[in-house]
């Protein structure tokens, strides 16, 4: 019950956060040099046409008035209309967000499925070959720039080995599964459509790995170091002294304690993955929000930029809230 009250309180924090974020982004995006009305009307349009357009878009108004008008719309669930696509921004986001979300979730799963065991293994076999190998793997992860890694992955697995597709979410000619969640993998499973599922899976492997590698490396290291710290605790010796098998000692008594710092990092990573997939999406031609926002910035499409920012900052708030709730389950000393 107290947890519910805590969640409600945290959700109220959304209001100031969103006010701050929208105001900042609004000011910054309008400070970008360039003229959206001119962009939209085209290079050859007459000055008069451009002025008319500016007036109809409300761009001739003072900045604070534009902001208030935007916020008023937002209160009514209206994110504005994209200058570029001429569609409501909300519609655009509905199309692009699931792709990014799917990529993020796939990357995060990869981080956890690979990072957790690898970190645990390195801690248990500290300073042995496995640990050294995982250290090299991690250093590569944090030091390789995403754009370079992406190109190398494409070169190797797409061009040379021809094992995996290099762009998009599905092969051309395949119909996407009926949209329930917007995540192709999930939707294909719900539909029981094997070919589409495996095709989507083959498409997501390269971008997901490319996107996740840095975070995977970080999570591996965090798990390793927090496991090592926990393994030196007295209660671990107690567990051993009571005859518990080594697997129980490590996977029950050590792991739960060492998950606390790991969850913090994983939570932050999810946020960064959502908002930071821009390079990866561009390289792998992934039709997600990252690509959408880059195109929007190039077009000075203010409503689209604002919409993207809102989605990302909302996600951040929710992820942090989730992390805090998970803490309470991991650590009984944390009570809200």
């Amino acid at each position, binding site marked *: 019950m107290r947890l519910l009250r805590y969640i409600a309180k945290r959700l109220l924090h959304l209001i100031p956060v969103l006010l701050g974020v929208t105001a900042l982004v609004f000011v910054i995006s309008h400070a970008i040099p360039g003229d959206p009305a001119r962009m939209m009307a085209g290079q050859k349009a007459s000055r008069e046409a451009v002025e008319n357009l500016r007036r109809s878009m409300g761009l001739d108004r003072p900045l604070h008035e534009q902001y208030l008008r935007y916020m008023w719309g937002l209160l009514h669930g209206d994110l504005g209309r994209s200058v570029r696509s001429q569609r409501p921004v909300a519609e655009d986001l509905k199309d692009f967000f699931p792709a990014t979300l799917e990529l993020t979730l796939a990357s995060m799963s990869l981080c956890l499925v690979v990072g957790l065991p690898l970190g645990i293994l390195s801690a248990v076999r500290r300073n042995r070959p496995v640990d050294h190998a995982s250290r090299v793997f991690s250093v590569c992860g944090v030091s390789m720039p995403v754009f370079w890694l992406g190109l190398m992955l494409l070169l190797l697995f797409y061009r040379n080995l021809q094992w995996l597709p290099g762009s998009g979410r599905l092969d051309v000619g395949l119909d996407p599964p009926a949209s329930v969640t917007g995540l192709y993998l999930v939707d294909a499973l719900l539909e029981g459509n094997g070919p589409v599922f495996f095709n989507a899976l083959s498409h997501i492997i390269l971008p997901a790995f490319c996107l996740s590698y840095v975070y995977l490396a970080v999570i591996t290291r965090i798990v390793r170091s927090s496991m090592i710290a926990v393994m030196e605790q007295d209660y671990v*010796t*107690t567990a051993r*002294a*009571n005859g518990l098998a080594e697997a129980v000692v490590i996977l029950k008594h050590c792991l*739960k304690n060492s998950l606390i710092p790991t969850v913090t990092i994983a939570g932050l990573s999810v946020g960064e993955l959502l908002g930071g997939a821009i390079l990866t999406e561009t390289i792998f031609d992934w039709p997600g929000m990252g690509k959408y926002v880059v195109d929007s910035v190039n077009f000075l499409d203010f409503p689209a930029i604002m919409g993207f920012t809102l989605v990302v900052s909302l996600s951040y708030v929710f992820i942090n809230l989730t992390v805090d709730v998970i803490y309470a389950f991991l650590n009984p000393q944390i009570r809200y």
Partner: protein
Amino acid sequence: MDTDLLRIQDLSVRFFTYQGVVRALEGVWLSVRRGEILGLVGETGCGKSVLARSILRLIADPPGKISGGRILFKGRDLLALPMKEMRRIRGNDISMIFQEPMTSLNPVFTVGNQMEEVVRLHQKVSRKAARRICVEMLTQVRMPDAEAVLRKYPHELSGGMRQRVMIALELSCRPDLLIADEPTTALDVTVQAQVLHILSDLTRARETSVLFITHDLGVVAHLCDRVAVMYAGKIVETAPVEALFQSPRHPYTRGLLAAVPSLDEDREFLASIPGVVPGLIDPPGGCRFHPRCDGAGEPCRRMEPAGVEVGEDHWVFCHGIR
């Protein structure tokens, strides 16, 4: 029947560190008899805890290594057992209580979860039966409202309560030997007395042997049947508790007893043994105590002293004893 439950023979333990090889234990001989409480005293760093951990093979390797000797428990050499057998003994036949009650229970699991886990592991009983055993054990350590305690997390209990939980946990499988590594050092004096009473009452009633490690001679006099004195990784004297307090023979033991302040005397300074405990990377040759010993002669520098029986069950390792 063999009166010795545990017999440690010529045990040596080394730690391989960057500074060099630490000879933490060197040729230790010690036995614990059935039903007795044996006190093991010595200064901090003399190897008491290493000895305790060696018995359960809890020395972290690396950096530690049991480099020689045997540990016979009911005639079986623990050091030669496969790990699987060893785990069956840990917490079941031999269990151990540590110094720090604040950190020896896992903070993220309830007391009940941790106790039941051990009970079910060794006794193969249902969850419900395990719960009953735990409640029974907690009641025996005089824990009020045992059911509620089982649902609590360690941080919700005081230090004394946690140490009682540890006692309940470690005695729940009716071990033959309980190793208590300074179980009351971290507690307030009043709580200390209470925990000691519970510990001795329970182990006496169940005829559990106890290896009680401490640096508190008062506790030893009060609690133990026999005492072993340790100095720099070696046992220097073992004796029944009265004999040790009335006629200590090893110069180190005498120094220790002289250093205990008493309320009747009016001393300006606390007595101490001159010199410092030697480092164990390059310990003094011969008798390890000779650099601090008033009566040290030529043989003390060259040879390790052999044991001499100076009274009934009273052994001293010193060249000065003839």
